[in-house]
């Protein structure tokens, strides 16, 4: 609470607004008198606005990076069809990984979306101007590696991606060429706390650490090695210390029970409509991200 006088500093950083808003929502749970529906609704609007800006900034940046690396570097795609309305219940964060990359076709967006819904939901529930065409890729390998590496490495790599990564991995070189899924997804890696957002292109991410082939040019050492992943994370973090640490801070606020909480069903709307519960439900309209916070 502002006491006395102080300079009015104004920082319009989308990310800090997101953290401030989440902090407000979190602290409102312990306020006397119960959650105030009106205030939380307004905070959720700010959260939504800031998130839109944050994501569009990220996409723009990723797009810029892709411009710099059109073919050479191994990239990973995360194509995912826009999921149905955020009303779908969140699934377990840790997904069993399909060993067979041929399962790709069978994997629906909904499946992979479960764990990724933490950050993905709001993206796909974004207003029309941010929404893109549904995934046109017939084989939605969650992660792909395109690039100069040899064939076949993809399949193997995909199947052995480490648990805790919120994707159904599939390093797929098969299709090769340029991916043309134009939807966007954001995924949070609960282990490394790396946030990955993909729009039109691909983003080099940890999956590459699983693929010996595509790991070669970038990092030495065997795949699956934690140190490799960590190297990735740190490398990524170093580039974007602000992004990852802030997001990971936000997630770590809610502690180790996060994944379990994500799987909790949205409260039944028939339940007593006290201010607390309905505050939660109001927030859930934002999508899974805030729903996860609210469930906590």
């Amino acid at each position: 609470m502002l006491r006395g006088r102080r300079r009015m500093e104004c920082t319009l950083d989308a990310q800090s607004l997101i953290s401030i808003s989440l902090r407000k929502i979190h602290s409102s749970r312990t306020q006397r008198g119960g959650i105030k529906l009106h205030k939380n609704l307004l905070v959720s609007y700010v959260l939504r606005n800031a998130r839109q800006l944050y994501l569009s900034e990220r996409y723009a940046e990723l797009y810029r990076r892709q411009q710099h690396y059109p073919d050479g570097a191994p990239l990973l795609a995360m194509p995912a069809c826009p999921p149905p309305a955020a009303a779908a219940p969140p699934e377990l964060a840790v997904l069993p990984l399909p060993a067979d990359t041929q399962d790709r076709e069978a994997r629906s967006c909904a499946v992979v979306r479960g764990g990724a819904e933490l950050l993905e939901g709001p993206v796909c529930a974004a207003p029309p101007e941010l929404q893109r065409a549904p995934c046109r890729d017939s084989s939605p390998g969650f992660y792909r590696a395109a690039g100069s590496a040899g064939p076949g490495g993809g399949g193997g790599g995909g199947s052995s991606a480490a648990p805790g990564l919120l994707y159904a991995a599939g390093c797929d070189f098969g299709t090769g060429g340029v991916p043309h899924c134009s939807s966007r997804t954001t995924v949070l890696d609960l282990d490394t706390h790396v946030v990955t957002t993909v729009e039109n292109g691909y983003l080099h991410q940890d999956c590459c650490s699983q693929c010996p082939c595509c790991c070669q040019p970038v990092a030495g050492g065997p795949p699956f090695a934690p140190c490799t992943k960590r190297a990735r994370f740190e490398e990524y973090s170093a580039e974007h210390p602000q992004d990852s640490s802030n997001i990971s801070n936000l997630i770590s606020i809610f502690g180790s029970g996060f994944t379990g909480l994500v799987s909790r069903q949205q409260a039944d709307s028939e339940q007593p409509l006290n201010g607390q519960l309905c505050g939660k439900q109001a927030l859930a309209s934002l999508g899974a991200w805030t729903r996860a916070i609210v469930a906590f």
Partner: protein
Amino acid sequence: ATGDKGGRVVIFQREQESKNQPHRRGEYNVYSTFQSHEPEFDYLKSLEIEEKINKIRWLPQQNAAYFLLSTNDKTVKLWKVSERDKRPEGYNLKDEDGRLRDPSMITMLRVPVLRPMDLMVEATPRRVFANAHTYHINSISVNSDYETYMSADDLRINLWNFEITNQSFNIVDIKPANMEELTEVITAAEFHPHHCNTFVYSSSKGTIRLCDMRTSALCDRHAKFFEEPEDPSNRSFFSEIISSISDVKFSHSGRYIMTRDYLTVKVWDLNMENRPIETYQVHDYLRSKLCSLYENDCIFDKFECVWNGSDSVIMTGSYNNFFRMFDRNTKRDVTLEASRENSKPRAILKPRKVCVGGKRRKDEISVDSLDFSKKILHTAWHPAENIIAVAATNNLYIFQDKVN
């Protein structure tokens, strides 16, 4: 009447004119203090219910006693405030202390008489209207029929009869079937001053709906819908917050409504729904500070607004204990301050000015020096005279027009 965070109501009364002390005319002093609401605990939902008074509304006076409604988040109470200046003396069956006498000891009978006593003002709760609101009550409004009143929470408005406490009619319900689709809440509601079937309610989206209770039992469909299109050049992260209406008031004539959002006061003509007829900037210099105001929660402050008796001047509060008046006819406005230093009795308030940038003149205050912990959310204007009451944190200031 004032209500505070501790659930207390304090009533002030104006001194009567007296030949002995003519200079004391118009001074207000404490008339009665009582505890209206206590903190409660809802065991079913594990929620504490704050005792903080959200709204007070007077009922029109019909006899010697005064009646008012006061509400916290969940419960509305009707209080009767009455004076007692006589007491009966000379009972036969009990003595002056109230102890019963032994009937066999009574040797004579007398008629009790009323004797004057020191004035005592007592407040008694006459009705308690409870358990009708799931969400937090933000408004109450007495109907012009003096028989009914309404109470509004975030999603519903209920109509009550003063005599019946175990039933209320739900007249507005904007709760969506799926709470995930919630996009707006009710922020204020008021009955029309003359037409007992008409009321308005405002929303967090900056819209006002006028409803007619004759059309249907549940007034979900509005008769009129007042909304001003958003100015896209002013769009920011906080556009939704600052457009949320914090107060709505009918003019005394019933022809206009006034709404207060975070930065402006708007006057609407009931006959024109697509935009207000007047917009007044209360403290537009805060528009560039919204980020900081969001951080310190000031952006959620709910300011009220009031009309003067003739609907020619409107008043609302601001920060740094400033309050603003706008003359609708002359289009002049003034900023005044309610503070101890500036308010010696009978001193004339000096207009204040906030300097927005550049050179600060003497007597001006720069935006960065404003004290945002000193906010004036509640003001009131005497219905007939130019006397105003301004609530500044722990103090109540009462100002009046210069008396010649």
